[in-house]
């Protein structure tokens, strides 16, 4: 990380200003100098090569820090699949991979590209388009690449990415390179066919259905080969793994080594999401998902090896918006086809420049706070805190309106480190089942010492305190990391003076069910 601490700290208004201008008059004279934010400084890139960081810094799915500021969208153009996974039921939206089922709208490449333009014109932070299903994008190569072609012609600033199970990947690497796709995600759950046979009942391969260990052997060979071919060509590769307790949980450490040695730049280990009503093999046979502590322990075990990604929300593949927010209802096919879309590159870039300013300010604030922390008595204590936020890296969500909490680990050595997020049902749902909902929230953040919110009522405040989770609203609308470090300093001081006793927290639940904005 470099130390460019000489930038100006800017307030939050420019973002709102620019949004306002865009809303009032498309293409107003907001000047833009080409949109190249010279940002060498951030709290993400320490262990990434600069050229990789340059590529991922505005990518909400890949840069933990960018997901506060930038948005991605997925379009569902690829319904067919060439393998079967035990955690997938293709009739329904898949909770494990970013994949909608048939209940989501399927689009033709022409409809998809219109939708992308419509969304990008309305949401200037939309910087990434992904194709992730409903099936496997590379089992639908014609539709997938046609969509990329149409979009790269009209909206060249949008980054393209795709997710695949990897079976067909080696056949399409050249086409992927040709369309300048800069990120590919491969779902790799095993490198040992014996493990694979418990996850994949069959694959469709060379015009035959292949089953069991043989199927898993072919799949893993194709995945490794595809990964090598992509990294040889300098295309960024992320690996997703679904953690399935008792089947591949221990084995994923091996997977992590295998993909790292082949050049994957990020490994995202996601919890299995499985409930009988999903109708998947795992859902029906009672296969459980991991607890929050089990997931974190595995992510920590792999972290020494390579970058881990912890902010993935397993969002639906046709979701639109910032991570954790879904605006897809505004962009149904009927609505898009009626929209007059004029693609306005200039205001998009002006908006993105303002975002960069805000990010720099956030990083500076964190750094300043971190410096004061270093002077305090160092301690081995580590605590987790939950944060209610709707983006921009600030504590800006009401406790009762939060449908997810971001979790940070606080320590003297690393300050505030993002380690994951917890989905919860909205606590404040207008009256019914509130008691249950509050209990769900507590279970989801039960491993946290405190919860940071912009606002909270008296009643939930008392219940949280009784459960041993300290509700904190004094940092409302401040930057998350700066506030968390300030809180941690105070926490250490209180422990030291004997005012409070540090207690280790228990485990927490991972909510089962696809993330769909309520």
């Amino acid at each position: 990380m470099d130390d460019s601490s000489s930038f100006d700290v800017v307030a939050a208004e420019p973002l709102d200003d620019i949004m306002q201008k865009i809303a009032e008059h498309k293409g107003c004279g907001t000047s833009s100098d080409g949109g190249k934010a010279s940002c060498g400084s951030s709290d993400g890139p320490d262990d990434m090569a600069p050229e990789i960081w340059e590529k991922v810094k505005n990518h909400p799915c890949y840069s933990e820090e960018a997901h506060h500021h930038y948005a991605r969208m997925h379009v569902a153009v690829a319904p067919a699949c060439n393998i079967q996974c035990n955690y997938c039921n293709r009739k329904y939206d898949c909770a494990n991979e970013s994949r909608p089922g048939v209940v989501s709208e399927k689009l033709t490449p022409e409809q998809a590209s219109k939708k992308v333009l419509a969304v990008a014109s309305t949401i200037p932070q939309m910087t990434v388009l992904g194709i992730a299903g409903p099936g496997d994008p590379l089992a639908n190569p014609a539709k997938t690449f046609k969509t990329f072609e149409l979009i790269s012609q009209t909206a060249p600033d949008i980054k393209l990415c795709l997710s695949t199970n990897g079976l067909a990947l080696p056949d399409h690497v050249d086409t992927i390179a040709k369309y300048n796709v800069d990120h590919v995600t491969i779902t790799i759950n095993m490198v040992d066919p014996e493990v694979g046979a418990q996850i994949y009942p069959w694959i469709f391969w060379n015009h035959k259905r292949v089953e069991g260990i043989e199927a898993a052997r072919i799949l893993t060979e194709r995945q490794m080969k595809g990964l090598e071919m992509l990294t040889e060509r300098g295309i960024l590769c992320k690996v997703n793994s679904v953690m399935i307790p008792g089947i591949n949980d221990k084995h994923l450490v091996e997977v992590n080594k295998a993909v790292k040695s082949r050049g994957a730049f990020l490994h995202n280990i996601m919890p299995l999401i499985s409930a009988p009503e999903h109708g998947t093999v795992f859902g029906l046979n009672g296969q459980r998902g991991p607890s929050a502590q089990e997931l974190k322990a595995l992510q920590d075990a792999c972290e020494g090896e390579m970058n881990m990604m912890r902010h993935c929300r397993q969002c639906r593949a046709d979701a639109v918006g910032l991570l954790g927010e879904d605006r897809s209802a505004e962009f149904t096919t009927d609505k898009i086809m009626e929209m007059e879309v004029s693609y306005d590159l200039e205001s998009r870039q002006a908006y993105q420049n303002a975002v960069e300013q805000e990010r720099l300010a956030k990083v500076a604030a964190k750094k300043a706070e971190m410096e004061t922390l270093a002077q305090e008595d160092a301690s081995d204590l580590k605590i987790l805190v939950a944060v209610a936020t709707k983006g921009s890296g600030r504590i800006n969500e009401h406790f009762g309106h939060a449908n997810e909490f971001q979790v940070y680990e606080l320590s003297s050595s690393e300050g505030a480190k993002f380690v994951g997020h917890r989905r919860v049902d909205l606590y404040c749902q207008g009256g019914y089942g509130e008691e249950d909902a509050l209990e769900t929230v507590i279970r989801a953040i039960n491993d946290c010492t405190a919860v940071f919110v912009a606002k909270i009522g008296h009643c939930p405040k008392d219940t949280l305190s009784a459960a041993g989770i300290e509700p904190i609203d004094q940092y409302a609308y401040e930057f998350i990391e700066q506030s968390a470090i300030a809180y941690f300093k105070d926490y250490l001081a209180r422990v030291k003076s004997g005012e409070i006793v540090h207690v280790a927290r228990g485990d927490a639940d991972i909510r089962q069910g696809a993330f769909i904005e309520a």
Partner: protein
Amino acid sequence: MAYKIIASQCTSCSACEAECPNVAISEKNGTFVINPKKCTECIGHFDIPQCVAVCPVDNTCVIDNSFPRYQAPGGAA
């Protein structure tokens, strides 16, 4: 002679459409259907019917007994 698709089970994933060597499969009213005049049970192309092998829902692409079995030209099979 032909295979047919049980519409109530079809997920409309379109996987079979792309695999059929005879272009016998197409989308109608949200699900996929096989044109019995075009389906050859994949005889002469592949060892197993492609729609059956690729379909994610078991027993969805099945023999349609209302037609006689397909006879390959030349009388074999």
